[in-house]
């Protein structure tokens, strides 16, 4: 019972703040609403007994990505007013695409068998995650780190400017 209440609270936080991210007219509000979305998702992870994942979610998304996003937003010219660069807004085609997508999603959601499992016991997951990274998922782990390294090298290359000869 208590778990249901907590789940509802976290789910509500996630969905409402996600709605604010999407619908807010002010891009700064959108960025700050993401904080609550990430927080709600971290809470859901805790309910699924994935404590390490929840902390990672906060550390990476709130401490890293959201801060960079806010940096980007604050370097944006004219935050308050949304400037549409493309003036030709066509309502009818947009409505058709949106409705079609909505229908597709509804069918998919309706047809999926949602498997339910009993609430998992909160057991330590850190050691198991580490072992899996070093054994079964070594290749994906290494490839991901290679991708990140490439991105890092690329960022440095772009940022350092022209080399004087």
């Amino acid at each position, binding site marked *: 019972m*208590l778990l249901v209440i907590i789940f509802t609270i976290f789910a509500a936080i996630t969905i409402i703040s996600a709605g604010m991210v999407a619908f807010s007219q002010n891009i700064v509000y959108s960025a700050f609403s993401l904080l609550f979305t990430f927080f709600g998702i971290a809470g859901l992870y805790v309910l699924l007994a994935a404590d390490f994942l929840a902390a990672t979610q906060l550390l990476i998304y709130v401490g890293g990505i959201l*801060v960079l996003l806010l940096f980007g937003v604050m370097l944006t010219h004219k935050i308050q007013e949304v400037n549409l660069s493309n003036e030709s807004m066509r309502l009818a085609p947009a409505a058709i695409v949106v409705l079609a997508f909505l229908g597709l999603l509804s069918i998919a959601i309706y047809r999926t068998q949602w498997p339910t499992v009993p609430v998992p016991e909160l057991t330590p997951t850190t050691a198991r995650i580490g072992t899996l990274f070093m054994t079964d998922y070594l290749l994906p782990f290494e490839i991901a780190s290679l991708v990140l390294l490439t991105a890092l090298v690329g960022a440095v290359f772009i940022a350092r400017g022209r080399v004087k000869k």
Partner: protein
Amino acid sequence: MRNFVDQLVNNYEFLETFPRPLLYLIAMVAASAIILGFIAILVMFFVWLERKVAGHMQDRYGPMEVGRHGWLQSIADGIKLFLKEDIIPALADKPLFVIAPIIVFVGAFSAFVVVPFSENLIVADLNIGIFYILAVSSLTVIGIIMAGWSSNNKWALYGAMRSAAQIISYEIPVGIALLAAVLPAGSLSMRDIVLAQSGGFWNWFIFRNPPFGFVACIIYFVAALAEVNRTPFDIPEAESELVAGYHTEYSGMRFAFFFLAEYANMFLVGTIVTTLFLGGWEFPIFPSAFAFLNPIIFVLKGIALVFVMMWLRWTLPRLRVDQLMYVSWKVLLPFAFACLFGVSAWMLLLHSA
């Protein structure tokens, strides 16, 4: 916490009538409230101590009027802040302006949930302890950016941007340096880390794996100073350049929230160093003989480290922005990596887990 409640129910039968989850919830809230109160009182002590330290280092007394040697000064300040008018600038972004101090405060205080004051005096011995602290501390930077932006003030925004850049940069050496203590402990849980250092000061992680444990401790302490925006890394609130940085526009209780969070964060850094490198709640020699003093020793170690931070503040000049980045990326980070490799190499060589 769950065990504690179960014990309580076994001892007092009338508690059986209440549903167990409700009891857990009440126990959690009560424990958090106790921690909150304790840290708040400690913070008031720190504010007084800072002024005394500053005074004596500048060859004056500091507060002397309110109570003996001004020991009631913090309470007087607190009452003053309570009674002040709540000013929100007309052009400020009101909702964000109001939320920002709360987020900073939550980020600072929720970390204390996993701080182990003694073997059993810990609100929640999370399996991911130290990692949890790093995660919730990252809320602070969002609150600071929020405060800086919503104030609609150039100095505040500059301060917030500086703070964000600084905290993000120094998070990396912090994480790597902490790993040098997590590796020999083999656990992220704060309690297990302290238990792995039991039995005298020569077992503390600062003295283990020489010299890497010591260097990692220094790296963590320096980087953590930057994380909590303390001098010599206080460019986000550099008063000679930015008025007061991100909290320029704040007054009254909202300012008090920032202030409390700053000093709570200082004590948090003190407790992290204590837990990971200085043997936590243990007395340096014959720890088992002094076991009854454990929580007091833990707090004293934390206070001593906070004193070192104050000492540094009134000794060192402020770094420039470029020097700040240089220290983080070209000095602390390579040495932190060296410590990590060094500790791993020692552990492999000695086959010690």
